[in-house]
């Protein structure tokens, strides 16, 4: 078995943090793990992706497109942008959030008005969460990506709750453990897709 996860979003949203949690949890669960992280331009605002793969045996850090088991998007049109990476039957976990690119502000492009409908049309297995609002309920806007990670964890049943817990704790800064654990379990609970 090899599981492949694609994380997408906008530069500065904390995609590498989420990738780190998945990788650490998979490692704790005893799997071989690879990740691929796009680094580079320091500026924010660009479309970014990362992949995490885990399983038995050895494998490359990148999957073929159409080979992703779970796609997680921290911005909703980024989910649609990378939809063709998902496998048949794959799960999409998407944050309900619009980050307006400057190409829209300067009139060169338009931001789709029907994102939610398009998401439902594209992904048969969709978990669509307002992570930003949920994070604010918990008192810290920065917890949005932890909530999303908690939600996507439900789509990766080979990793037990104990291993998710240790994966998360391996990545969280001292002093923020409790808040992140609460956010993670909240996201996991809200993931209605089994």
């Amino acid at each position, binding site marked *: 078995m090899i599981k492949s996860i694609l994380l997408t979003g906008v530069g500065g949203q904390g995609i590498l943090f989420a990738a780190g949690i998945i990788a650490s949890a998979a490692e704790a669960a005893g799997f*071989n793990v*690879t990740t691929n992280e796009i*680094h580079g331009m*320091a500026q924010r605002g660009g479309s970014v992706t990362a992949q995490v793969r885990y399983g038995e045996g050895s494998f*490359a850090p990148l999957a073929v*497109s159409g080979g992703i088991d779970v796609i997680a998007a921290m911005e909703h049109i980024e989910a649609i942008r990378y939809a*063709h990476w998902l496998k048949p039957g794959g799960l999409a976990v998407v944050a309900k959030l619009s980050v307006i*690119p*400057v190409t829209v502000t300067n009139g060169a*492009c338009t931001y789709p008005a029907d994102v939610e409908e398009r998401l439902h049309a594209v992904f048969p297995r969709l978990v669509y969460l307002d992570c930003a609002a949920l994070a604010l309920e918990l008192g810290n806007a920065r917890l949005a990506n932890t909530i999303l990670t908690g939600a996507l964890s439900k789509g990766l049943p080979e990793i037990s709750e104990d291993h998710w817990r240790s994966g998360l704790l391996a990545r969280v800064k001292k002093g923020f453990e409790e808040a992140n654990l609460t956010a993670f379990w909240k996201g996991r609970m809200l993931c209605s897709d089994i």
Partner: protein
Amino acid sequence: MRLLLTGNEAIARGAWEGGVTAAFGYPGTPSTEILENLVKYDGVYCEWSPNEKVALEAAAGASIAGARCIVTMKLVGLNVAADPLMTLSYVGVRGGLVVVVADDPGQHSSQTEQDTRHYARLAKVPILDPADAVDARAFMLEAFELSEKYGCPVILRTTTCVGHSRALVECGEPRPKNVTEFKKEPSRFVPLPLWGRKLRVKVEERMDAQSADASSHASLNHVIPGAAADLGIITCGITALYCRELMPEAPVLKLGWPWPFPDSMIREFAASVKRVVVIEEGDPILEEHVRSLGIACSGKSDVVPRCGELTPDRIFEIRERLRGTNNELPKPFPQADGLPMRPPVFCPGCPHRALFYALTKFDVIVTGDIGCYSLAVFPPLERTDVLICMGGGFTLAHGLDKAGEKKKVVGVLGDSTFFHSGITGLLDVVYNKGTSTLIVVDNSSTAMTGHQDHPGTGRTISGEPAPAASIEAIARACGMKRVTVCDPFDQEKLHKVLAEEIAADEPSLIISKAPCPLQIRRRLGTVRAIDAAKCRNCKACLKCGCPAIVVTADGKPAIDPQLCSGCRLCESVCKFGAIAPVAVPGQEG
């Protein structure tokens, strides 16, 4: 101990385990994190050198003293460091010297897609090509050994995908460092023609020995067996992993030490399979060599794309071409079209935006350079007309000027680029009586590659205080008479300075100075807001291209207080006084 490391972290780890004494480099994606990680280990001297040539020369000195050392750079950095590399190959080294060069197939963040293996052939030095982080650590250790065994520098070539991918790496403990003590040996360390001709012969002999060694060096070069002998794949680097996953039945000759070519190994492998395909990223270097050995093979001549990264999707396509089948990857979800593009942009509060916004008001030619400010080429600013390489911002301007171009030419480069290779260009303009207006966009950082220090920041890579070189004093010492320092957010003053200097018929330098807000991690000033009652919706503020300014549902601009850095650029752009500072609780300054 097993650690989940990126290729770049693994190279740092391997260097440390290999007893590295000193490390030199200049930032460049995807190589930057190697030194940033190595500096975290105790007892290793690390530095950001002003440029790659300086880095390699300093490392040569360290190695001649007996120390193990590494030099890190991105692919184009080796163009800058090529001169010392060529001669160092003759002169040779004492302590292991490894030049780590990060190639960028697919040009994720580079202006060219050059294949560093050509440099290894040109310099006649071995090159190692890791496939992942596990290889990266191990090959670093091997590279030190080979460098000391043959007394020559060794290139460790990575790629973007290798450097930025993680794998579980079994790590060890560091070996003791070499004892450093210089031994006088001029016939070896001074390549005057008299001695140089002898060294030249030695280099050829060394390559023959290396080719034989590479053929039996199982930890670097080996065959990964497959179930069917119909097709054998010769490859190097990360491509080996993709081939294993997508064509598991095919035996793979994985060349971690592809050059000097391991001829006997290649012959033996080719004889063991019915058909050979060479699948390599970059140029068909192995492929053409395999053919020169009289072995027929497929490769870039028929089934492998000539440019770009060999991603898993492309390996799949190659497989289908080799099999003569036309299967497509099963993709149940269509690739979306009509989505707005999301290119990287200047951050809110970026001082480069302010400088280039001011330049939009002048009818001049702008020769630009490489750094965050390259983004000025895109809409809405579109205020860079020509760009080639680091340092070119000044020299291109000078050439246009000397060619008799009627429009005034403005040459722009960044502070890190100024110290890298901008000073010589400035000297050229002054010495040869050019009339270009030169601008350094000084944000006190090497921002594009992730905010590294440089000789002007007053700090070393390890965070220690250091003398801060003054761009202004250097320019004056070079004979530049007109030098002005200006805050780019003071648009009124900047406009006046630009008008004056552009009109002057002698050269001048403007230092546009303001920090990078992404690096200092705080707002530049109070958050701005648009007063809807005063806003005439003229959309002038949108011409700044600030991501904090968005257009709301009613078609009017508004400022996102979360994103706004308070730089005041939009406020000075608005003619109707609609933009002003506002107090947002907890977000002052």
